[in-house]
């Protein structure tokens, strides 16, 4: 089951660039939360701070606290442990190119030293079923490379790979932006079927997508300072319905009605 995410006073930098300014955001457990906003507003950086991928960039820096359930991820545990509990799906499908479909899904467990064949078989089947890919690949599990699938299938394979380690949270960084409309629809259906069991945070450029899949929506925007500095900040965070029908902030309204961004 998923857990909630408590983000308090989060600041992030890339070198001298202050990418995220003082974000405080409480993401509910077992729901889908969308992050929307113009390019460069820091929404991708924000999700990368939740599983500590941000700090894999040597010039990146972060302050503030992020709690996953009871766990303070910047104080209590190692980044490796954090990422084991928080799955991530990236913008472009990135299956391991030399591995079979089966090995791709099993990789998270195997690379952490898990070897029981029978359990791996079960996990691979369960994960592929959850990712709505099982019927399409069950005959080629060990015969075909993950890279031989279509883009949409590859992305669902990556989702299955993330689900296989049984995460509590699933982060999705524009998971459908490289896909055609039909594959996008499949991913969105998948998000619907997964929420309830996992806490899902999805970054999207596509407002209709946020409206279709998310229970809560956060709108990020870019603010500019006097001397040319710019940073991303959270403008408004409420139910998806409110964001799109009755936003409190003028900037949100401009964005969702298409006047800006």
């Amino acid at each position, binding site marked *: 089951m998923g857990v909630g995410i408590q983000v308090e006073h989060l600041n992030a930098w890339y070198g001298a660039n202050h990418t995220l300014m003082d974000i405080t955001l409480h993401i509910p457990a077992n729901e889908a939360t969308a992050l929307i906003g113009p390019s460069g507003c820091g929404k991708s950086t924000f999700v990368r701070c939740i599983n500590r991928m941000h700090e894999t960039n040597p010039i990146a820096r972060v302050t503030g606290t992020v709690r996953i359930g009871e766990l303070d991820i910047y104080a209590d545990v190692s980044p490796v442990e954090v*990422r084991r509990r928080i799955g*991530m799906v*990236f913008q*472009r499908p990135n299956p*391991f190119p030399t591995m079979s479909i089966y090995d791709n899904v099993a990789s998270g467990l195997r690379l952490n030293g898990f070897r029981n064949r029978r359990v791996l078989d079960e996990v691979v089947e369960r994960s592929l079923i959850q990712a709505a890919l099982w019927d399409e690949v069950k005959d080629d599990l060990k015969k*075909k490379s993950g890279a*031989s699938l279509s883009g949409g299938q590859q992305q669902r394979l990556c989702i299955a*790979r993330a689900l296989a380690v049984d995460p509590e949270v699933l982060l999705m960084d524009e998971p459908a932006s490289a896909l055609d409309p039909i594959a996008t629809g499949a991913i969105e259906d998948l998000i619907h079927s997964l929420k309830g069991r996992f806490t899902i945070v999805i970054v999207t450029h596509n407002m209709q997508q946020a409206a279709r899949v998310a229970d809560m929506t956060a709108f990020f925007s870019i603010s500019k300072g006097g001397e040319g500095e710019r940073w991303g900040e959270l403008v408004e965070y409420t139910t998806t319905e409110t964001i799109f029908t009755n936003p409190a902030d003028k900037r949100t309204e401009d964005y969702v009605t298409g006047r800006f961004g």
Partner: protein
Amino acid sequence: MPSRYQPSALHRFRRIAANQLASALAIASTVIVVAPLVAIFAYLLFKGASSLNLAFFTQTPKPVGEPGGGMANAIVGSGILLALASAIGVPIGIGGGIYLAEFGRGTRLANFIRFTADVLNGVPSIVMGIAIYALVVLPQKHFSAFAGGVALGIMMVPTITRTTEEMLLMVPHSVREAALGLGVPNWRSVLSITLKTASPGVITGCMLAFARVAGETAPLLFTALGNEFWSTSLGEPIAALPLQIYVYAISPYNEWHRLAWAGALVLILLIVLSVALVRYVTTRGVLKGTA
């Protein structure tokens, strides 16, 4: 209705001509590159094949004047030297490449190592032989297969290190992120994901280095020395095909010249064979549709 941007007849002719000229140049270059290879191999076959017989592969050299004899000791000796060289050169070379690409990127130590590797790559092989003579042979007070293997192994390192680094850097960042995102420790991700993804290129680098040192004579002159008799001991001087070819080729005897040709042919065949074998073994398990 034809497009308004239809090219003129002259322009079209020029384009077709340029295209054909480029194709012709490419084909000509290919021929120029491949021709010497084919020529060398054909000439070796022509000069060496007639002296190849069972005795060549089973007997040790006979004294001057006695007919027959073979290079069995040199074939086995080359095998031992190359096995030892690979055991030293491949792990150190790959390890160095991993350090340069994954852990030391941008550090001064890495830049220093990269520079050293490039210089080492350009060091004449005879200098390598003298260096190992001073470092290994002199302290031990005798020539040995061990010293020869070390000399060849060190010569393999820079090539393998640099190709491993290049190949690792070609692995897309997204693949590394995928592994890290699964909660895989970095060292594990480097070994099981990045290196595995880059393995075809890394293996090519190892094979290049192997093929290069397999034909080296100079570094063996003051290290392995050569041996007219059977020896498989690492502590004794050992025969090697390139050394034997060298000795026979500069001798004044016709019989030895013929054996030298045969030895050269066998050396090339063995290199081709071992490279093909490694290729076969390492590509057997590759899946359909692997990018």
